[in-house]
């Protein structure tokens, strides 16, 4: 059977068309037909055959599912071992959850199917079963009971108590939770978590989504202990599939120090949930997980009372104690947290003590690092300025220029005040991003004013510009780095005009050759480029991480 060249041509065209069709892409039918109109009937035929072909892959049969698919796609209701799957309740990182009926016992259960990709090795499977069995031994009225763990047709699953109602996440999204309810809910949840801890189980993934509210608004904790199976020592961690939920994750968990993860980790998460109940948002939530993780690790949350003035001081203290960065500074147990919440509800004196001055200053700097670092920088420069002038007077009897001191002090005072205003603006969710640009612009204007008051380009304070560019990188926004670089360049050009035309007397400091300025300007551009590139790389890493954490 010899094929003519044209047959070969047609074959490769049709084969290519079919391959695209089967891959689920839209083949370039129009383009193909413009060149070979005679193929229209053949293409129609391929289309028709494709619509006869059964849907690709099936979850019931292990190994046949295409990579990345969910474990179950089939029709509902359908039987699954001793259960009948009724409807899909939700999908999470671990797999799909179904509402199901247990046929023999005639009870409604929730069945969680574990994605095959999460149980890659037999070691994972063994640990999953061990953890789930440990979890199944827990009996508590506020903990979702696990009935059964197993495997049917290669599909690993566990069946648990079905709670009719909504999750706390849905409840919070629906309308604000009043304070009394918040305290009651959290105290109940803390008691349940304490019970888990007494059984030697750490939840590791406490969040509003994992707290279910039944018809009587009683909370039920679910999904506990299993996060551990999927975390340490494997390639699964490397892709960060189940690393917990950043906004509710304790710093030791966020930093990946799994040996430090213990009951205190859950207490942190309880604090984060309380924070959200009080203020309507978790303590740290940025649009991408990397920023969130950075904040979890190094920032203090905005005080709840600033976001919601009706939060009583005592409740704020309880919340902040749970959110302490160091596990040792939190409540010693979830039971102790529940005790304090109950004391608060009864109006009794609390166990928790307000922090002393040192702690408050320290936590203030972590809460508002941009402001604190500006204060520190301005203070340091001014102090150095005063000390140097004092030394000059003492050693060389040069009297200080009081007028100059006054002007600088006033400018730094204005700078400090402006920073406080900008920080306030930045704290409000809505103005957060514009505030950043306003702040940056004012920073560069004030630096320009200081330089105008001092010796302009002849002053060593010109180093302020590279500093501004480097500091702009701390916002992790490429665009902002460019913005600050541009402002620095403009300011430098203004100072050049100042140097050459407005105050020619400055030219005594050094020669008027342009090479000095050209080099400085190029250095600023290169610095901006380097910082922008660094930020870009960090963001690429961050978006990679975001793809992994749904």
């Amino acid at each position, binding site marked *: *059977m010899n*094929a003519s060249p044209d*047959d070969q041509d*047609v*074959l490769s065209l*049709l*084969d290519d068309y*079919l391959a695209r069709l*089967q891959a689920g892409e839209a083949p370039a039918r129009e383009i193909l037909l413009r060149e070979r109109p005679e193929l229209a*009937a*053949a293409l*129609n*035929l*391929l289309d*028709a*055959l*494709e*619509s*006869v*072909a*059964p849907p*690709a892959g*099936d979850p*019931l*049969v292990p190994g*046949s599912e295409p990579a990345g698919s969910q474990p179950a796609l*089939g*029709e509902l209701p*359908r039987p699954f071992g001793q259960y009948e799957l009724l409807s899909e309740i939700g999908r999470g990182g671990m797999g799909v959850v179904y509402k199901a009926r247990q046929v023999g016992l005639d009870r409604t259960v929730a069945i969680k199917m574990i994605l095959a990709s999460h149980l890659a090795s037999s070691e994972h499977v063994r640990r999953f079963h061990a953890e789930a069995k440990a979890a199944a031994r827990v009996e508590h009225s506020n903990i979702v009971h696990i009935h059964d763990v197993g495997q049917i*047709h290669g599909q690993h699953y566990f069946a648990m108590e079905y709670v009719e109602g909504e999750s706390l996440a849905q409840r919070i999204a629906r309308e604000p939770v009043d304070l009394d309810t918040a305290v009651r809910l959290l105290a109940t949840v803390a008691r349940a978590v304490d019970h888990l801890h007494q059984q030697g189980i750490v939840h590791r993934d406490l969040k509003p989504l994992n707290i279910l509210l039944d018809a009587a608004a009683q909370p039920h904790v679910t999904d506990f202990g299993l996060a551990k199976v999927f975390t340490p020592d494997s390639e699964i961690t490397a892709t960060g599939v189940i690393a917990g939920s950043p906004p509710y994750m304790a710093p030791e968990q966020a930093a990946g120090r799994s040996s430090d993860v213990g009951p205190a980790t859950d207490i942190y998460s309880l604090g984060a949930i309380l924070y959200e109940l009080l203020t309507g948002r978790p303590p740290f939530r940025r649009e991408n997980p990397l920023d969130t993780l950075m904040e979890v690790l190094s920032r203090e949350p905005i005080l709840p009372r600033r976001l919601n003035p009706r939060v009583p001081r005592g409740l704020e203290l309880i919340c902040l104690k749970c959110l302490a960065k160091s596990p040792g500074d939190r409540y010693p147990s979830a039971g102790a947290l529940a005790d304090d919440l109950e004391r608060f509800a009864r109006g009794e004196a609390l166990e928790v003590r307000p922090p002393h001055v040192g702690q408050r200053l320290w936590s203030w700097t972590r809460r508002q690092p941009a402001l604190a670092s500006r204060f520190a920088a301005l203070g340091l420069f001014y102090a150095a300025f005063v000390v140097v002038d004092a030394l000059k007077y003492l050693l060389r009897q040069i009297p200080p220029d009081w007028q100059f001191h006054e002007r600088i002090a006033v400018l730094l005072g204005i700078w400090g005040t402006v920073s406080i205003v900008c920080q306030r603006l930045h704290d409000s969710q809505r103005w957060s991003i514009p505030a950043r640009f306003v702040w940056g612009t004012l920073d560069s204007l004030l630096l320009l004013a200081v330089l105008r008051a001092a010796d302009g380009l002849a002053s060593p304070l010109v180093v302020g510009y590279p500093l501004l560019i480097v500091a702009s990188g701390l916002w992790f926004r490429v665009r902002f780095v460019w913005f600050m670089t541009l402002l620095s360049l403009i300011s430098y050009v203004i100072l050049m005009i100042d140097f050459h035309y407005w105050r020619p007397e400055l030219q005594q400091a050094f020669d008027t050759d342009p090479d000095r300025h050209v080099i400085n300007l190029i250095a600023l551009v290169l610095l901006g480029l380097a910082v922008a590139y660094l930020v870009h790389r960090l963001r690429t890493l961050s978006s990679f991480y975001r793809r992994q954490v749904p």
Partner: protein
Amino acid sequence: MGDAERPKVSELIERARRGDAEGRDRLFGLCRTYLGYVARCQVESWLRVKVDASDLVQQTLLEAHRDFSGFQGTCEKEWLAWLRKILAHNAADFVRRYHGTAKRQTGREVPFRDAADSLSRGAPEPAAPGATPSQEFFRLDTELRVTAALAELPPDYQEVIVLRNLQRLPFNDVAERMHRSRPAVQMLWMRAIKKLQEALGDDQ
């Protein structure tokens, strides 16, 4: 053959719903070939072994017959989707049973009569088709026409289309399954497509 004797699927559904036994029999008869291909490809692509799907089709038609009053649609598209749904249930059962009873045999080519027999429970044929599919397909829409025409092709033409198009196997696998070289199955496929096109062609 007059137009009255070559009705559309939607007309047959209408007739069957009115209680016209002949219309109903022809409706089911028309879809048998189509279901045969879908069933075979569904189960084979899951199990990756050769399967005799005729009992699966039988079971599906029986259930469709039994539950016909539950079918709400009117057009061919809805009708085929409904049949496929019933088929999907039965196919899943079939596969589940296969996994339960014959787990150790995966990979071997074995007939599944045993597993499938338990499905059919010895029930009678739903109906004898009133006219053969090949006589009827001229008036039918593409999916049924294509499968009816496919059934008329020589066996190796059918096989290559089933494997390449309906089971979406790459040519290398098709070649392996058919014990031929890759260029040979590609040529065979070309000719099969041409032939199928011709069979359908007069009407397009």
